[in-house]
């Protein structure tokens, strides 16, 4: 019985483990370590440089008493809901339209997708320019004679976040459309046939049969959209820098500004910890359900 003993578990699949070192390092050192570091220092009064000078929850009290933070949160919610709803709806509608065996599908798809190739900086610039009240759409319409025409979303505090969303949607829906299109193509053709034989109108088929079947696609899409929403920064900076006033501030920008502009790392870390916390509450249970379980076929 040369080898009846169970060999050590550590060395089974050793290569796989070795190959996963970058991932493990990234996960543990960068994501977990970085996060823990951030959380730890959010309890300090670190200014320009991180210092372990604990001040308890002071940074958090201050954070939640800061109007700008509250506005940022509110904006993020508005922006999040708009992005989610509209990119899903528009993305799906476009995908559904493209899925009708139309001519020039490639052309249309490319047109819808190309903005995704552009950076947020570029997107922000272009839309800032298009929405510029003097040169952009408003100016042009006015110069055509409709002088009372008012379309000035980037310079109007109450709607500026919607103005920013226009650009975000322009940039992002193409990818969503692609994901949806891929999902639609993955649906068993027989389902369509069955619905046609049953005499179910197209829109009802989509609404009651196809969409519920596309759950995995929607999940992937949701991950992509949601991670983008939480991180929104460049777009705001490029379009409005948070203005007018602080009307279009977002949490990521608050974090950045307080860490680097205000040189108050503690405050920035507290803000980012709050962001992380809210993300975790939503994501972790879901991620475990979705990816942590056994391998699905």
């Amino acid at each position, binding site marked *: 019985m040369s080898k009846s003993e169970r060999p050590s578990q550590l060395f089974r699949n050793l290569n796989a483990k070795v190959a996963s070192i970058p991932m493990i390092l990234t996960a543990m050192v960068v994501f977990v370590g970085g996060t823990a570091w951030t959380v730890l220092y959010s309890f300090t009064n670190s200014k320009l440089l991180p210092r372990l000078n604990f001040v308890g929850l002071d940074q958090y009290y201050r954070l939640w008493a800061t*109007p700008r933070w509250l506005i940022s949160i509110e904006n993020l919610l508005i922006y999040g809901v708009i992005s989610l709803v509209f990119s899903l709806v528009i993305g799906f509608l476009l995908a559904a339209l493209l899925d009708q065996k139309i001519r020039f599908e490639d052309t249309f798809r490319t047109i819808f997708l190309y903005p995704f190739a552009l950076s947020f900086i570029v997107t922000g610039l272009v839309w800032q320019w298009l929405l510029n009240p003097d040169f952009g759409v408003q100016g042009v319409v006015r110069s055509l004679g409709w002088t009372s025409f008012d379309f000035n979303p980037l*310079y109007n505090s109450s709607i500026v976040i919607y103005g920013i969303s226009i650009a975000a949607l322009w940039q992002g829906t193409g990818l969503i459309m692609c994901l949806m299109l891929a999902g639609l193509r993955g649906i068993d053709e027989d389902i369509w046939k069955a619905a046609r034989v049953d005499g179910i109108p197209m829109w009802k088929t989509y609404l009651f049969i196809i969409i519920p079947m596309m759950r995995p696609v929607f999940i992937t899409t949701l991950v992509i959209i949601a991670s983008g929403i939480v991180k929104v920064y460049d777009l705001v900076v490029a379009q409005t820098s*948070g203005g*007018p006033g*602080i009307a279009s501030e977002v949490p990521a920008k608050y974090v950045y*500004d307080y860490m680097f502009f205000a040189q108050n790392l503690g405050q920035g870390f507290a803000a980012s910890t709050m962001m992380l916390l809210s993300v975790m509450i939503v994501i972790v249970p879901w991620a475990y359900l979705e990816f942590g379980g056994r391998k699905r076929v």
Partner: protein
Amino acid sequence: TDLEVTHWWTSGGEAAAVAELAKAFDATGNHWVDGAIAGSGGTARPIMISRITGGDPMGATQFNHGRQAEELVQAGLMRDLTDVATKGKWTEVVRPKSLLDSCTIDGKIYCVPVNIHSWQWLWLSNAAFEKAGVPVPKNWNEYVAAAPALEKAGIVPLAVGGQAWQASGAFDVLLAAVGGTDTFLKVYKDKDAKFAAGPEVAKVFKAADDARKMAKNTNVQDWNQATNMVITGKAGGQIMGDWAQGEFQVAGKTAGKDYTCLPGLGLNEVIATGGDAFYFPLLKDADKAKAQEVLAETLLDPKTQVAFNLKKGSLPVRGDVDLNAANDCMKKGLAILAKGAVIPWTDQLLSQDSQKQKEDLFSEFFAKPDMSLEEAQKRFADIIASAD
């Protein structure tokens, strides 16, 4: 030796001024590697700090002198320039002395001030007032009175760019001008929150409210775009530091003829001694360290000072230079400086943190017409109370 210098001077006038520094430095046989980062100090500083703390420091970097680099110095990341300063007798030539004080920590000198910037200027477009049919005002109060006429002529009375620091700066200027020097110091130096909530400051807020109303149609972001509105007569005036002067100059405008400058808004003629300074991170490479010394010396060289400040529109940090070439406005500034009517600026008095909070407040205040004065003042007092 190549020395990389980072800074955020990228507008027309600023770039021209930096070119002077580079020219002077290159003339010493070294090479100025330009590391300009556009988008104001806010964008540039985190990059600079990251690089210094990340262990890949540049040869020299711009900061607003004051408290921005304090911690870097305390962390021992910055080079002590005391020996260079002693050799160049900086304590004697630099004027006003408070400038060098800002560079001094624990008795050691860590930075080279290169210019004096004062915020306290009101820039007025002569053409705009002509068009509105009112005389060019001589002080803030007249200006406020003229606003309706300007508006009627389709001119934005006051240009305030969308960036937060502009709104905040404008308020500080009003505080020093409308409130007076003592009020200014009581609030920012003594951090007297009770006072900041009091009637003296309320007056300033009233003035700020006027400014807010006058500025409501500005629709530009950058300060130099706002300046450009004044240059082109689209706006009546702008509260902006002396660096705006550079833009007028680049646009080929003549002080007194095309535009008018009112230091201290014509109410309280003082100059705040804020400004830019260069810091030198500690480098391992001996050659570079040597080049740093050369650069530090070059920056304070009288000839460089003149060339640089003429282009930049700011005032030199030495009293012993010849500034005949200076224009009208600059001369006004020099005169005030000579009188010793100087105050420290917020960069020196407040931490960046408090500054940022203040910026947030005033940026909101200027963008939100329905924000009440009482609320704004209360929040202002709160910031002062917690300021450090």
